[in-house]
């Protein structure tokens, strides 16, 4: 058991060579690889961490945006709802206005029709009344009545005031016409002439004429002026009164109708 010095020296050299070889082929590459991998892993972890933070930030961003969107949507919905309500209200108002217009149009139309009808009715009623009265008085009129009519005429002429006489004479250029419903007898003619000349002067010239429109009675006619007593005048007055009354009624009724419609 002794040391072989050659082997001893060779083993030292061998060992040093082995150290160098392993340093070159084993430790350095392996340690480098491990360090590199560690760095990679560290950088990946860092990257992951950064990405996670970014993701978190984006999530937060997204959430805030979503909240904003929700808020905007709510606002828009509320605005739209308000607008819709407003529009509906407007439409309702418009429809109400239209309905009111249509109703008033209709009421006016009804009113017009009513007025037309009443006007026709009025005319018809008055003319019917007039015709009936005239017919009745015509049937009653005879010579005796004619006598009484002459008496009545005389009374009328005598009670004329000066103004009426003046007006009569101003229009009487040529002659005063005496209109009667029936033909007068001679005696009656003379009496009439006497009465007229007494009132308007002896020189007054008279023309006698028959006018069935008078129904019964007598009338002095000069130009536009007419004096006398006859049924036609009465009936004419009656006709006017009747028409005035009906017109008055027609004016008051539409107001009542409108009042009821409201």
């Amino acid at each position, binding site marked *: 058991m002794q*040391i072989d010095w*050659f*082997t001893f020296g*060779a083993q030292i050299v061998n060992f040093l060579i082995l150290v160098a070889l392993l340093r070159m*082929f084993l430790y350095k590459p392996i340690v480098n*690889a491990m360090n590199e*991998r560690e760095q990679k892993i560290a950088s990946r972890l860092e990257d992951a961490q950064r990405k996670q933070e970014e993701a978190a930030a984006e999530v937060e961003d997204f959430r805030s945006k979503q909240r904003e969107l929700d808020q905007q949507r709510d606002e828009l919905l509320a605005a739209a709802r308000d607008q819709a309500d407003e529009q509906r209200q407007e439409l309702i108002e418009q429809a109400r206005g239209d309905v009111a217009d249509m109703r008033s149009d209709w009421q006016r139309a009804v009113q017009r029709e009513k007025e037309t009808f009443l006007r026709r009715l009025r005319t018809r009623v008055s003319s019917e009344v007039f015709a009936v009265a005239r017919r009745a008085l015509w049937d009653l009129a005879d010579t005796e009545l004619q006598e009484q009519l002459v008496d009545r005429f005389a009374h009328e002429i005598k009670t004329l005031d000066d103004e009426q006489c003046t007006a009569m004479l101003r229009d009487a250029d040529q002659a005063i016409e005496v209109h009667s419903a029936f033909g007068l007898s001679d005696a009656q003619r003379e009496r009439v002439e006497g009465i007229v000349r007494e009132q308007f002067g002896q020189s007054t010239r008279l023309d006698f004429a028959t006018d069935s429109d008078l129904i019964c009675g007598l009338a002095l006619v000069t130009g536009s002026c007419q004096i006398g007593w006859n049924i036609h005048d009465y009936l004419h007055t009656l006709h006017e009164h009747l028409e005035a009354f009906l017109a008055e009624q027609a004016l008051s009724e539409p107001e009542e109708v409108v009042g009821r419609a409201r």
Partner: protein
Amino acid sequence: MELSPDQITIVELGPVTLNATLVFTWLVMGILAGGSWLITRNLSTGTEISRWQNLLEAIVTTIRDQIRAITGQDPSDYLPFIGTLFLFISLANLLSVVPGYEPPTGSLSTTAALTACVFVAVPLYGVAKRGFFGYLKNYIEPTPFMLPFNLVSEISRTVALAIRLFGNIMSGRILVGIMLSIIPLLLPTVLQVLELIVGQIQAYIFATLATVYIASGTSETAA
């Protein structure tokens, strides 16, 4: 039966005699260096690595962790030296299961050479780490009177390191050889397994002690 593989001559080239120690040392060196070269040619830095690379990484990482645990310092500087010591002794002992193989660690020349390397490495690391005088201060601490004792300790522990490894491996070889001649069945196999374990433990002890010596040379507080 030879006590040392130094005495087994393999080839004789003129004045140079290549004994079994040198030849098997080269074999171990070839396996270590060639294997490392083959594996580390294509190293992956990604997450997918080959199983061989995984093996090497596991070995290197373990060695680094051990060095760090013992020295309490960054293992990068010590890794080539300590790691090579361990890997060489470990593989040299492990290959003893191969018939015809003589472990170079069973030669006192080899263990003395390794120990000589440690003996030189300790002051080198110490000076590199703490400076020339800083390292020398180790020998006069706690008092200058301790200088002779420290020197004796330095030499004796180195010698002990060499003898321990040599003795263990050589004794194992001899024990197996004796057992084979007495009880050729079963028992030598068991002893050989035991010898394998002893070989690995010795590799670990040698490397660890070398680390401890270096650490004591480089550490500020070490006596």
